[in-house]
């Protein structure tokens, strides 16, 4: 296919953002319509990826490749495979919903807000398409700026602290990755071509160093325990659209980074670090879940639940088998949909009540029955009820983990119990019980809000009932990735003996 569809997808939102610039501040309605139009066109433009994608090859598709900085061999090189294509589509869809949910919620600096959103969309899609390290790194960092602004300008009372924390946390991680990228460039044949770099095999010691350097960037983004503490603050303070993008797309990039870079580039290190990664994932699952129980703020609770759910993702990925990897990718998408939808919903009631405290709610099922029904479905998806998408990923990950290490599945399955506990507890306190005086007479969802939530309902049920429509995209790419990771015999396994050898190796 010669049509540069990926470039169009990356740059169209930027063009759209620029097009908003001359619009008059006095007409926020026009700005909203324009932003919505841009995002809808973007989504329509992304549809060819769904229909024209060739599911029989692991090779990159829709590839565009142009020389960019000749002297350093930097290229503009984009393409998608079965792992990244779905996230491009998801990002395009979620942005529309973010614009819809901000319709009346954002009243100050409306133009700047939508420009930031569109800018962010372009950068995010770029990150998923980039196949050149420099291009990837630039876009990776470029995402930080609009997100930082979204939190810092349109956020809640503690927005500055949260924005700076978010920015520094991720920046520190990214810088280590930059060191890793430069090392790769120097040792891997003076190229930034990610696919070419993955062809080279590196000495184990170097692999291990680089694995942890990249880990710093990705683990913060996921976020894995113990570098998760930026997430509750960022989620809580961010405006609804910011939370939705954060949960829906941004934190997926950490897991995506493991898939796209850590695993194919450092296969032996990945195998060697499998057990530590699984242990960190299990801690995240149980820790994130347990800590939800004592939350008093709805957004904080959902933020911590993300830590738990993303623990499932990394557990699946580092199970290093088909079910684990495919389940992990499913869970990334599902978590994006479900948690995105939960944040959309919370944003809608926050707009009415201006409180996020669980104790301020109660009995919403009486005052807002339609909303209660929507939220119930998303809650059920979050607790992994079969028939919703949440179950598919979780169950596949459990299978993958069980195959690798039985105990991992046993610990992870406790997360399923804890998940039901805190989500149903939340649901009861907000929607059941007698109507709280503070939220009497709340207005039921408007048609615009129903329109915002409905696509998520469709996705929850569609992916839950017929997940093969997503899984079929992944099969070949995941199989290829696995063959890359497992091609090299595992040099060290993780027991006490090899641990000491590993320490020796790293410090010699």
């Amino acid at each position, binding site marked *: 296919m010669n049509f540069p569809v990926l470039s169009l997808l990356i740059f169209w939102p930027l063009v759209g953002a620029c097009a908003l610039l001359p619009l008059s501040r006095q007409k926020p309605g026009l700005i909203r319509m324009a932003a919505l139009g841009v995002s809808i066109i973007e989504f329509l433009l992304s549809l060819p990826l769904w229909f024209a994608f060739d599911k029989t090859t692991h090779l990159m598709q829709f590839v565009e490749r142009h020389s960019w900085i000749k002297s350093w061999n930097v290229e503009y090189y984009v393409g998608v495979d079965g792992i990244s294509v779905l996230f491009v589509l998801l990002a395009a869809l979620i942005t529309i919903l973010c614009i819809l949910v901000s319709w009346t919620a954002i009243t100050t600096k409306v133009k700047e807000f939508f420009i930031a959103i569109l800018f962010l969309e372009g950068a995010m899609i770029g990150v998923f398409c980039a196949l050149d390290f420099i291009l990837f790194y630039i876009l990776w960092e470029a995402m930080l700026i609009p997100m930082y602004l979204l939190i810092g300008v349109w956020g809640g009372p503690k927005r500055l602290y949260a924005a700076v924390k978010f920015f520094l946390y991720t920046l520190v991680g990214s810088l280590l990755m930059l060191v890793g990228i430069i090392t790769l460039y120097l040792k891997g044949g003076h190229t930034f071509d990610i696919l070419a770099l993955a062809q080279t095999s590196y000495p184990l010691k170097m692999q291990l160093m680089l694995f942890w350097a990249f880990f710093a960037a990705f683990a913060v983004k996921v976020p894995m325990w113990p570098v998760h503490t930026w997430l509750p603050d960022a989620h809580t303070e961010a405006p609804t659209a910011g939370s939705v993008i954060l949960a829906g797309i941004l934190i997926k990039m950490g897991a995506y980074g493991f898939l796209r870079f850590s695993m194919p580039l450092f296969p032996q290190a990945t195998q060697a670090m499998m057990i530590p990664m699984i242990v960190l994932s299990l801690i995240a699952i149980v820790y994130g879940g347990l800590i939800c129980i004592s939350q008093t703020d709805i957004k904080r609770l959902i933020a911590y639940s993300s830590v738990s759910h993303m623990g499932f993702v990394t557990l699946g990925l580092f199970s290093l088998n088909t079910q684990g990897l*495919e389940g992990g990718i499913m869970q990334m998408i599902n978590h994006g949909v479900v948690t995105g939808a939960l944040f959309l919903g919370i944003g809608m009631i926050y707009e009415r009540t201006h409180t996020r405290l669980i104790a301020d709610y109660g009995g919403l099922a009486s005052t807002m029955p339609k909303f209660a029904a929507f939220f119930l479905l998303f809650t059920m998806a979050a607790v992994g009820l079969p028939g919703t998408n949440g179950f598919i990923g979780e169950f596949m990950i459990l299978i993958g983990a*069980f195959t690798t290490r*039985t105990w991992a599945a046993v610990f992870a399955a406790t997360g399923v119990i804890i998940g039901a506990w805190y989500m149903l507890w939340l649901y009861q306190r907000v929607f059941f019980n007698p109507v709280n005086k503070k939220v009497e007479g709340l207005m039921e969802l408007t048609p615009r809000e129903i329109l915002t939530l409905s696509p998520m309902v469709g996705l929850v049920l569609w992916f839950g009932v017929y997940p093969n429509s997503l899984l079929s995209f992944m099969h070949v790419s995941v199989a290829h990735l696995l063959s890359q990771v497992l091609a090299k015999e595992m040099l060290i396994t993780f027991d006490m003996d090899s641990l000491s050898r590993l320490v020796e190796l790293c410090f010699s």
Partner: protein
Amino acid sequence: MPIYLLLLPILPLGSFILTFLFGKRLGRKAHWLPICAVLSCFGCAVMALLDVINGVTINTDLYSWISSGSFQVSVGFLLDELTAVMLIVVTSISTLVHIYSVGYMHDEPGYYRFFSYLSLFTFSMLMLVLGNNFAQLFFGWEAVGLSSYLLIGFYYEKESAANAGKKAFIVNRFGDFGFSLGIILVFLTFGTLHYDQVFAQAASITDQTFPVFGMVFDLPTLIALLLFCGAIGKSAQLPLHVWLPDAMEGPTPVSALIHAATMVTAGVFLVARCNPLFALSTTALNVVTMVGAVTCLFAATIALVQVDIKRVVAYSTVSQLAYMFMACGVGAYSAGIFHLFTHAYFKALLFLGCGSVIHAMSSEQDVRKMGGLKKYLPVTYWTFLLATLSISGIPGLAGFFSKDAILAAAFSSPIGAGKIAWFVGTLVAGMTAFYSFRLFFLTFHGTFRGTEEQRHHLHESPATMTVPLILLAVGAVSAGWFCIPPILGGHAPWISFLAPVLGEPGEHLGHATEWGLIATSVGAGLVGIATATLLYVIRPEIPDRLRDAWPKVHSWLFNKYSIDELYDGALVQPAIRFSRKVLLHVVDGKLIEGVVNGIPQAIGSFGERLRKIQNGQVHTYLSVMSTGALAVLIWMLVR
């Protein structure tokens, strides 16, 4: 695939969606679509049963649900003898409960919501019993859990109802924890989740072991017990029984349908369905039997003293489900399913009878405030009496035959726990008769103890409620006639019908032994009835005296052995405290955030100090410079 098989789940699903979305506009007519759907389902179930009787069994996949590498799961249907029986139970009870609800729920604001949930439940339950693989079983399993959650919490503005719904869901999750791991282990062992393939290979795993946590387990035992975890949760057996009594917060028709006749029996269905796996492990069978025996006795003792009319019946349900597990544990799966079948009718009748009483009593549920209702509620009275006689094991009625089948199987079983099961089963048969008649006498006999206002409103229920009662009474009487044992002149066609799926028990008892067993259990029942008559009709002052004589025993039973308090104190509260005090405040708040905020602060304060030496004052610079120069000079001289 015959069309009725496809219609079975689709009709209630469609009815759920339509009623949920548009039912509000229909107001009091919202019940028509669900009732038509479930009635058609009953028709389909009858067709299915006829087909199965004619030797048709169907095992077919509809579409591939999850496909990932070697993990292949489909949505598919299995129609065999066991499924056919379950279909009849589910659709018949569901139909009657639907009709009953038209009268019972008449004044409820959430009328359409109630009927849409009933449809959702029917759909889920049908998916559960129709599935041809473990994954679909799990789908149905969780979906009935969701319907149960919604229906228990139907009066969601009542905090106790909302709590009960949540509790049911979470407690079941504990069972599902083992159940899902069991399903995964089945997949890893057999490479498939389809029943036919798994059971065909079952024998090949005998004597295999499975290592986990440094211990080595017998593989068949591990699989069976993990699956059984799910059954313990769903069928409310010890130690996960705590949700079922609380589930009585739901509307009474729900208690009859979900929490007596159908959903709670899913655990028994699971064990019966997986009998080729359970058969591989004597240990597992012993555990099933013992869990059944202990629960059976445990729940019956609590039922002796409860005063809430629905809770008595709820504990009775827990106890009766335990009978079914005892049957499965001793290998008499068809006897277990037979008790499931008869129990569905007499227990649904008991619950709906309770509903009729509660309806008449203006929502009063305390039996201490009832009494003498016989003359006000004649239909309810007579049907309730039949159900009570049936559950007490009076010969000729449904409960007698199924209970007798279980006790005979337990007595003759080679399983170690078999004799214990028989002893407990016989003992509890007496207790069951006692508490059932206690409830019956307290409710319908004696003098009315409620308020004048309640007496004023007393009335027999409308025909929509009494007709289902009468139909269920027919079942409570006659459901047992499908399995009249040879000794009483029958052929027990039930056993031979289910034999292709559940096998036939090998042991046969001598005539004398069998007569002896019948006499013992009937005798126990009669003693129970006689005691109840003595205590609650002839000498009604005795129970109070007994209570005063043994206050500790009474309060122990009355407080249900304080199991709820134990769980709350040992599990729930510590978890909450651990979460808040350790994880949130110390680990997250102090340790991680300490490092995260500490590093920038350290850098900041270092810079702050560094700044002080550049204060822009010439004399500071001069003094530092001269000190430095002096130091260098001294150093050079000393060297």
